[in-house]
């Protein structure tokens, strides 16, 4: 069930009414847990079985770790092996299956048809990271294991976050699950702008830009200029799509009385890779920092080891995103950028005294991001190589017009996001301009909504 579907609207309204009619916290949690499993099982019921078994496994394992501190290491290893193993099996089977299949064809051996039919359960990448963080924190002694199975189950399966995050931490969500919740108008006050902006970004901005971008990446040999134009448009599409999802997720959670973390803070205004990752998919980057980069030693090691840690962390980040060599290159590219910027002394807190230097750094970073997102979006590295070597940079006169057509759509539809960003920065929240903006956004949704809305991009990861 996607947030943009009519089925979801009906499901959500019934659930919300029932949830607030029930006064007891235990029943509210049980209802939310049941609803989360129904939400998840809507397409493939066996997904819910996988979610249920893996939740039970980590629930008992965390309790065992707390009870047997002498066996923490082995129990943690079991949990990591299982969680990463399941994720790797579903996520990367296709990755290798395609290569194995090609090899078999070259050897004139027919590949088994079932090889390519392993479906990735939606949201697996997201809830697996949630569970790993929980078990690691319990093993470190920084978190008490949750004894209430319903509360733990809800932490893992909480439906607003289940498919595409944010990757919430137990320290944030479980205490809220364990607190009494009574309806407050405050929840609605915080939720409605998030929901409105989320649907606006998804339905009006992301889906419209998508139709322009997708047309380029299905061409046989588009010119490099056309690819760059489409990539630029894609950057805004992805931001609108993913931040839109996060806004909806946070808005929905808010209506149930939960405060969940944000994922984006104007990422394309970053001046360094470290600043970018402080603002882009924040819950993933902080997860990678806390559960991979720091355990590897972070920056408190030799320079060479520090650089390796950066490269390795981003390599894993690329692999997490998908089964394709382009994601590996994407991750390593970010790793290499981070190493170079660190070597130049341009880290997270870097801010030059001269304004012009800062602006130049932002433009350079934006151009570097353009290359990164090119790797992220291309169908394959072979396709990119073919397009780059196929002809001149601009291609034919028609291709130049096509590049401008694509860029035009991307930029025109990105303008409302840029306007909102500037309004948030410069205007008081009580300004009438916000009312006008939201009213126009609602009209835009009405104009662009249709029952065949595309899936959120990050749902595929």
């Amino acid at each position, binding site marked *: 069930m996607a947030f943009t579907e009519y089925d979801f609207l009906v499901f959500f309204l019934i659930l919300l009414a029932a949830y607030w009619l029930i006064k007891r916290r235990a029943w509210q949690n049980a209802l939310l847990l049941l609803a989360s499993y129904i939400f998840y099982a809507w397409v493939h019921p066996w997904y819910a079985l996988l979610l249920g078994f893996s939740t039970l496994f980590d629930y008992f394992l965390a309790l065992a770790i707390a009870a047997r501190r002498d066996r923490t290491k082995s129990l943690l290893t079991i949990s990591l092996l299982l969680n990463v193993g399941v994720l790797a099996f579903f996520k990367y089977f296709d990755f290798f299956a395609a290569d194995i299949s090609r090899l078999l064809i070259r050897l004139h051996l027919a590949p088994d048809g079932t090889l390519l039919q392993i479906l990735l359960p939606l949201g697996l990448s997201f809830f697996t990271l949630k569970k790993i963080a929980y078990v690691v924190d319990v093993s470190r002694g920084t978190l008490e294991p949750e004894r209430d199975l319903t509360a733990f189950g809800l932490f893992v399966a909480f439906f607003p976050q289940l498919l595409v995050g944010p990757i919430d931490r137990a320290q944030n969500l479980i205490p809220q699950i364990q607190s009494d919740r009574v309806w407050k*108008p405050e929840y609605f006050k915080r939720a409605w702008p998030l929901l409105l902006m989320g649907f606006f970004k998804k339905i009006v901005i992301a889906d419209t830009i998508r139709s322009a971008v997708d047309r380029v990446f299905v061409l046989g040999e588009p010119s490099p200029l056309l690819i760059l134009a489409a990539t630029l448009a894609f950057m805004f599409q992805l931001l609108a799509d993913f931040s839109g999802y996060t806004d909806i997720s946070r808005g929905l959670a808010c209506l149930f009385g939960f405060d969940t973390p944000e994922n984006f803070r104007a990422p394309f205004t970053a001046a360094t890779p470290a600043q970018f990752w402080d603002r882009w998919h924040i819950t993933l980057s902080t997860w990678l920092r806390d559960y991979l980069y720091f355990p590897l030693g972070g920056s408190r090691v030799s320079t060479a080891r520090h650089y390796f840690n950066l490269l390795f962390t981003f390599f894993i980040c690329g692999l997490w995103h998908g089964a394709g060599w382009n994601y590996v290159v994407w991750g390593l590219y970010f790793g290499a950028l981070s190493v170079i910027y660190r070597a130049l002394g341009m880290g997270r807190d870097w801010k030059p005294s001269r304004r012009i230097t800062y602006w130049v750094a932002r433009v350079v970073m934006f151009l570097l991001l353009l290359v990164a997102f090119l790797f992220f979006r291309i169908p394959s590295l072979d396709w990119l190589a073919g397009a780059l070597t196929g002809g001149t940079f601009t291609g034919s006169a028609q291709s*130049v*017009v096509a590049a401008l*057509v694509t860029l*035009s759509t991307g930029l025109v539809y990105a303008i409302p996001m840029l306007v909102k960003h500037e309004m948030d920065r410069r205007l008081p929240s009580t300004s*009438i301009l916000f009312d006008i903006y*939201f009213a126009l956004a609602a009209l835009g949704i009405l104009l662009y909504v249709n029952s065949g809305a595309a899936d959120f991009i990050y749902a595929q990861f």
Partner: protein
Amino acid sequence: MRFFLKYLALLLLSLAGLTWYIPFHYDMEYPQPAGPRFTDEIRKIHARIIEENHVEVVLVGDSTLDRSVDETLFSEVIGQRAHMIRIPASSTALWYLVLKNILIGETTNPPDTMILMFRDTILTLPDYHVSGGRETEIDEYATANEDFVVQTAYLNFMNPLEIAAEQYLPLYGARRRITDSIESYSRALLPGLFLSCGVECSARTFGDVFINIENINPDFSQGVLMGEEENLYTSRALNFDAQIGRSFLPELIRLARESGINLIFVHARTLTFPNLESQPDGLAEYKSKLFAYLAQNNVAVLDYSFDPRLPPEYFADPLHMNAQGQAVFSRILGEDIRNLIPR
């Protein structure tokens, strides 16, 4: 909360203004009937060919028909004048309109036989291939009064909110026209500024570069083709008992019978499932129910699903035959049809 109320007041005010302005601007009724509105004009070329050539057999189908049957060769084999109405990506809504409005409605002497080529569950999926560009195609065969088609192919698949919005919110009802116009202007903004290429020039380039099938990566176009085909094998599509009552099939049979047209269904051979074993769960059961239904209604059906005379070498892609396959199949089909048509 005052912030929300201010916003809501603004929204309602704008909606009220647009509800007054849009019907006036686009010359729309209010409330507008839900579902697509078709114009009264019908494409008459097929009716003219049928009339002028005294066509006796008409074949109707999508691109699988187009690529698997050679009209001239087929006519020679059956010894009667045949005409093919092949509309790529068409489906039952359009085939029903071809029978009702072209073969019956527009000809003084309807053909004796209509051969309808289909595959798998397409005959009982009334909402398959009816939206987007296909809606425009359907309009070419529809009159302004197609309540049955609108209900069967569209309204039955719209939720109550959508139906109410289409009727009472002109902004929603006219959304396609409005967004098309916004999109064409936004596409032309930069080409217009830098290359003096305005709305028309940008639209032309858009069509030449992005809609031209020759520019599309073949792997991708095949992927899209097969992705579309997946809609034929969902659990809903495979549920014959639930689908038959809401499909165009009973009406197709009734109309043909009442007009004295001999209706013959032909199940195309494709490589989506090249043999019996590769079929998804439920397809074999679906087909047996479909064939039983057709037999019960005295409608002939020829099934080439797994015909060994049509090996994979005869196919250009999983759905379409190559020239060699077309030549062979035209002859096979012609010989089988010859035995089923009045002489």
